[in-house]
């Protein structure tokens, strides 16, 4: 696990490796395109202002179908080891994670790489984006499906868009308040004391310290 330590800067730990950052930002750009084009397709006043429904719809569909590509590609690439490990971390909630939700016990919760709010947000967005992909596909390629599925898919697409919007507003607001976390997603490394204070189990795991919690490390990855 010591590969996460930047060797020439021992005071830094790599929070997000190059593949993770690449996946994050390509996904962010695609989601940005989807939100912009989706708003034009959905909101009457914007739609009247911009028009060109065919073009906007095609951009929306292409961006939507491309959305899973960076994530899936990274998950099935040897270099995507960091991303696969983070998926496991996001899935599993420790007893500390459950305590974290209670304000009185938050201070004593010893967290791994992510807090439970981040885990919930990531799981929600992951599920919601798959639902958007499925419902959007039914809307676009409707002919094999019953009429009611098309209407239902439209409704699901609308409501999930609202949920994703709220979730992303929260994600961006909280992220922009934390310059260290922002830098980690921009360039990778974080100061070692910051990791030790906020994410003690992750810190112990990547520095090989005694805090390491087997549950938090995920299963060992096979060498590729």
């Amino acid at each position, binding site marked *: 696990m010591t590969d996460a330590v930047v060797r020439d800067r021992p005071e830094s730990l790599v929070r997000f490796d190059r593949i993770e950052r690449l996946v994050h930002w390509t996904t962010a750009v695609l989601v940005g395109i989807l939100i912009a084009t989706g708003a034009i397709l959905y909101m009457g006043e914007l739609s*009247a202002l911009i028009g060109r429904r065919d073009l906007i719809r095609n951009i929306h569909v292409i961006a939507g179908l491309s959305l899973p590509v960076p994530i899936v590609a990274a998950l099935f690439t040897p270099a995507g080891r960091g991303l696969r490990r983070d998926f496991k971390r996001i899935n599993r909630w420790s007893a500390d994670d459950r305590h974290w939700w209670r304000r009185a016990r938050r201070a004593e919760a010893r967290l791994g790489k992510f807090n439970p709010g981040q885990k919930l947000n990531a799981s929600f967005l992951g599920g919601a984006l798959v639902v958007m992909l499925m419902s959007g596909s039914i809307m676009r390629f409707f002919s094999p499906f019953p009429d009611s599925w098309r209407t239902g898919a439209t409704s699901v697409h609308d409501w999930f868009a609202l949920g994703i919007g709220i979730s992303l507003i929260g994600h961006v607001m909280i992220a922009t308040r934390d310059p260290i976390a922002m830098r980690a997603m921009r360039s990778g490394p974080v100061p070692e004391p910051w990791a030790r204070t906020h994410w003690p189990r992750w810190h112990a795991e990547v520095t090989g310290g005694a805090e390491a919690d087997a549950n938090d490390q995920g299963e060992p990855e096979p060498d590729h």
Partner: protein
Amino acid sequence: MKGRDTPVGRRVFLGLLGFGAAGVLVGSRIDDWQERVIGPIEARDGTGFLSLFPIGRFRIYSVAESVPSRSREAYKLKIGGLVDRPHTVSFATLTARPPVQLTRDFQCVTGWRVHNVKWVGVRLRDLLDDAGVQPSAKAVRFTSFDGVYTESLTLEQARRDDVLVAYKLDGQNLSRIHGGPVRLAVTPMYGYKSLKWLDTIELTDAVEPGYWEHRGYDVNGWVGRSNGRSDDPTA
């Protein structure tokens, strides 16, 4: 601690997939209910708050580069083609005629339906009679002042009681996004037949497929009997 970890992430993920799939299967019924119950409240909601939520009412489809706005004062409807008296009709002239009211469901070919839409306008038939349709005319072609959107009806369809040249929707002057100041309301057919931003009415010797028909929709767009759909008729 070991062994007490729970796969919450997976549960959230799979739960959402199940929720989404259920929504696709029963969503049309929920959608319909929302439109009937909350739609009318939303229409009267002055704050616009409810319009933030995806509940019923109209979705706005606009195909041109932008929707030109045309004031009621400057508006002129042109009637020409195979008629004895080609002429233009101002908004004031149109609204000076005895208004015809018509309440029908509005069904979109993509699935959404708005119940009990109240149209006010004049019968297309009366405008055609004013212009004097020549015997060689078999169809009516409509163009929109957005410069892109076109539609056609057979003369027989155009003369139906439930086909209006409309200027009011649910008690209000037609707004720009709903096709104002003047649009068609071809109520027995899918929404795409009710051309917005009506500019010209032209009598022709044959039906010319319009904008959406070139993109695969049926020329005779009867609700429930075309486009491979089985909606309740709105006629």
